[in-house]
């Protein structure tokens, strides 16, 4: 049975749901990919994305880290701009390493960081973080942001997304694919339980080690955040 809220999400105006859209099963939170036989795809404009690539305009040969895992669209878009792309599937690693266990376990956190954010001496000129940070418990999130800060060059940018519905128990879990500089193709792979929900003030606090934070609030209850190192 589909809840009214999720039904509304599936019927959102402007979205192009695939035929025979997936059946959402309430009560499941982790490993969203297993919940769905088919994916729900929609295209949406993204001011954050536009801004992120505007900062990179006129430059080539930059190192960009994409934490959503490798997709053909993102590879094409970023390498066509002349940049080098680094890819890491953060959510997959999160599920593999913690597998539903406590995300405050120090040795697991260390393992996670070694596995996901260990790029030798490489420093990045931009990081596409997407929505992965909201699935991390406070201890893991703090350690991850600290590591991200060390591998990103000063005055470079991070693009992150956070769901803004503070009462949400489950939020749509997307893979983000770049259609063009202003548009994203969102492929919903299911729902996940966010470890934390952030508002503007808590996001400012979260990124206090960074130079600046800029927000864009969207109709889809997604808060787009541009963070400057």
């Amino acid at each position, binding site marked *: 049975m589909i809840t009214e809220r999720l039904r509304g999400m599936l019927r959102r105006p402007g979205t192009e749901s695939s035929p025979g859209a997936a059946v959402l099963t309430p009560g499941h939170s982790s490993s969203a990919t297993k919940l769905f036989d088919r994916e729900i795809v929609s295209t949406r404009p993204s001011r954050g994305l536009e801004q992120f690539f505007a900062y990179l305009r006129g430059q*080539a040969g930059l190192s960009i880290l994409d934490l959503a895992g490798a997709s053909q669209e993102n590879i094409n878009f970023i*390498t066509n701009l002349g940049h*080098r*792309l680094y*890819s890491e*599937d953060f959510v997959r690693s999160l599920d593999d390493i913690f597998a539903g266990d406590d995300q405050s376990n120090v040795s697991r956190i260390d393992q996670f960081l070694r596995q996901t954010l260990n790029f030798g001496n490489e420093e990045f000129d931009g990081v596409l973080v997407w929505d992965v940070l909201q699935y991390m418990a406070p201890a893991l999130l703090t350690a991850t942001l600290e590591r991200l800060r060390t591998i990103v060059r000063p005055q470079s940018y991070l693009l992150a997304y956070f769901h803004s519905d503070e009462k949400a128990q489950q939020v749509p879990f997307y893979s983000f694919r770049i259609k063009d500089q202003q548009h994203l193709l969102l492929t919903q792979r299911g729902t996940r339980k966010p470890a934390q929900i952030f508002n503007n003030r808590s996001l400012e606090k979260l990124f206090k080690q960074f130079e600046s934070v800029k927000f864009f609030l969207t109709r889809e209850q997604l808060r787009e955040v541009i963070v400057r190192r």
Partner: protein
Amino acid sequence: MSTMPFKAPEPETTRGQASIGKAVKINGQIYSKEDLYVDGDVEGTIELQEHRLTIGPNGKVHSSVKAREVVILGNVQGNVDASDKLEIRKDARLVGDIKTARIIIEDGAYFKGSIDIVKPEPARPPGSPAPRPPQAASVPAANAQGNAVAAEVKR
């Protein structure tokens, strides 16, 4: 009605190419002057001058790989240099850095590493002069290759 005994066709993946079966394990260097299909374990290096390398679904390669075209259906841990094209198929797993002219990655594939797209130099018509070397002695020769070089540019 034919009296010829029935002969099962060869699998598409291994026709007309050398093959390393799934029960084979190799430690060392492999050089091949024909297409190669690897469905076993390889530790070392694999180099195919102008040919296609296919890592089958059972293939486990812990080595750097260099070929004209590379298709991965199995598991590769190492850098991949595919001068023409790299395909990472669904359920494949690649951990390593990629250098290639074209890349195709299917949904469901796992990749961790960096991607350098290196555009091939355009073919020169016969008799045309060779391109002049760069003026500045400090610029490496690889700088002629667009993206490959651009990756070294720092802000």
